[in-house]
């Protein structure tokens, strides 16, 4: 049985500021907790309890603080022995505002844009019924959708220093018209339900921005070349696709397309590739309409011989070369991960410590190595950095080191895949502290990650891709409603839940 990581932790009495095993976003079967992860978890609990007692705090309060996070990174360094995370012993006992940690005390030093943020119906959290929420006068409707969206807002904005989110799609097609020809709207377009259809992402973005009084959210559109299909001719239903394209661009005003080549919402029996004729037709139609940003899931696919290989990033090369005016953001940095690889997962993923390469990240790196002139491909790090950081910090050094060395710090884009991983703050904290060892820098030609690199990766690169004026956005933040709610939330004792919503095995 698979249960949510947070549920597993509650049953085991674990309260950890970082997840102590990989959780599934339903795109892969997570590996069981490793022996080292068990050691990290055990140390976090032991040291956290000890430290909380020493300074007279509750364990809950301590684990939700910057001190709890520092303790967790010290535990990771102790077990993995690589000092992947820059953290001082003293940080365990000195409470700080989380945003000022590793930022020279400067709040808001990094403008964080998370380009891979999801919310999912059915996630049960305690916030809606918490005393803090009631005291703040939140009017939480008792329905699943608002429940999840409120949670999303809380965990992304109140519990983390994320400034902006890109609500990222999950593949699914919308019904377009009623039998009488009337154009369907909103939920009518997904009568059998859907996780994050385009209409809902757009509505959520608008609601967030209206509530905040500033631009805090962008959204993607799910439409792809195999979503509307003429089964008679076994080809793209171009009329329906263009109708949907117009709607997503002009009504929803999406900010990027989101493609999953290995999925098949129209039940065509197949997926597609970025460099096939149907994708190129779509790209040309999108070009005519001014949308030139493609966010593409790559990696995290397995099993099906029919569909699985379509998530290999091999098709990025031709598409990027053929369409230099488009930008291709490659999600998960194409980490394959694998499904049933157990303790031999490194070998199964062809991890080579001599080169730092592993599947299918190597395919993505090789594209740039072969084509140094390519300037329109951007590795995204959601469920890449955070997965590797808690699975094997040395692989994380290689993964981030190679991304930066190969594509440049100005081409690596921050994303987290949260809410699967709970509030993204632990991942943000991890990357602020993350460093590549001297040994690997010397051997592999990686450069130490600088704060300038971090600033680009955390948000400045995404801002360029999405046309966000960072200066204006920064100026608007302090006075916007979301910042004021956050201030009130923290003043009233709001605490980050160390609650991870992705799936783990109930051992």
């Amino acid at each position, binding site marked *: 049985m698979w249960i949510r990581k947070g549920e597993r932790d509650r049953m085991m009495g674990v309260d950890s500021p970082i997840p102590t095993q990989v959780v599934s976003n339903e795109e892969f079967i997570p590996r069981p907790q490793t022996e080292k992860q068990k050691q990290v978890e055990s140390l976090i609990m032991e040291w956290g309890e000890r430290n909380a007692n020493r300074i007279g705090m509750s364990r809950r309060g301590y684990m939700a603080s910057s001190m709890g996070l520092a303790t967790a990174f010290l535990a990771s360094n102790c077990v993995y022995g690589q000092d992947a995370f820059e953290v001082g012993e003293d940080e365990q006992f000195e409470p700080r505002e989380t945003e000022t940690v590793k930022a020279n005390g400067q709040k808001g030093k990094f403008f964080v844009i998370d380009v891979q943020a999801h919310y999912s119906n059915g996630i049960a959290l305690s916030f809606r019924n918490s005393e803090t929420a009631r005291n703040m006068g939140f009017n939480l409707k008792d329905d699943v959708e608002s429940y999840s969206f409120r949670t999303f807002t809380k965990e992304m904005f109140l519990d983390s220093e994320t400034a902006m989110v890109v609500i990222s799609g999950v593949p699914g097609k919308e019904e377009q018209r009623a039998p009488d020809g009337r154009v369907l709207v909103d939920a009518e377009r997904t009568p059998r339900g859907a996780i994050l259809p385009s209409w809902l992402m757009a509505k959520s973005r608008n609601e967030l921005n209206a509530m905040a009084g500033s631009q805090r959210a962008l959204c993607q559109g799910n439409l792809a070349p195999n979503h509307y299909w003429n089964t008679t001719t076994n080809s793209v239903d171009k009329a329906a696709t263009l109708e949907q394209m117009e709607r997503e661009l002009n009504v929803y005003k999406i900010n990027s397309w989101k493609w999953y080549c290995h999925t098949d919402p129209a039940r065509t029996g197949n997926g597609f590739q970025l460099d096939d004729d149907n994708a190129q037709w779509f790209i040309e139609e999108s070009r005519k309409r001014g949308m030139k940003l493609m966010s593409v899931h790559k990696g*995290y696919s397995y099993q099906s011989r029919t569909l*699985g290989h379509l998530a290999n990033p091999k098709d990025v090369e031709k598409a990027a070369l053929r369409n230099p005016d488009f930008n291709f953001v490659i999600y998960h940095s194409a980490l394959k991960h694998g499904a049933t690889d157990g303790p031999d997962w490194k070998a199964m993923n062809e991890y080579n410590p001599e080169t730092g390469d592993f599947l299918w990240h190597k395919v993505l790196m090789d594209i740039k190595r072969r084509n140094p002139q390519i300037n329109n491909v951007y590795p995204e790090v959601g469920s890449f950095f955070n997965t590797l950081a808690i699975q094997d910090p040395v692989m994380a050094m290689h993964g981030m080191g190679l991304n930066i060395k190969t594509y440049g710090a100005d081409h690596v884009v921050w994303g987290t895949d949260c809410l699967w991983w709970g509030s993204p703050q632990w991942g943000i904290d991890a990357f602020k502290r993350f460093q590549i060892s001297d040994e690997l820098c010397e051997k592999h030609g990686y450069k130490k990650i600088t704060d300038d690199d971090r600033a680009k990766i955390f948000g400045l690169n995404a801002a360029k891709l999405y046309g966000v004026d960072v200066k204006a956005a920064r100026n608007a933040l302090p006075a916007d409603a979301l910042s004021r709610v956050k201030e009130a939330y923290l003043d009233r004792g709001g605490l980050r839940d160390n609650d991870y919503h992705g799936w783990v095995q109930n051992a």
Partner: protein
Amino acid sequence: MSEPQWNFEGEPPFEPRTEAGINLCAYFDGMPDAKLKTYDPAMSDDELMRWDGNFKSDGDMLLPCTESEEVDVAMYRRYIAACVRYRDRVRGGLMARA
């Protein structure tokens, strides 16, 4: 004995092909024959979920990369029944070649 190279996924679909169906066929192709042989259609839903081990606490299956629909117990039962029929049909030939 090594596991034959099952290809239930490559069989003509027994019901309209969907992304979830394709992935579920592939999932069963990865299930050892010895395990499949212990499948009993008379199992209750709870027993079946425990027997398989890859159902989530919300009652649907954790079937990676099935992004646009969930696999519930009813769908699982239809596909595993078809998979049992497929293996019964091809087992002899595949074993002989293995």
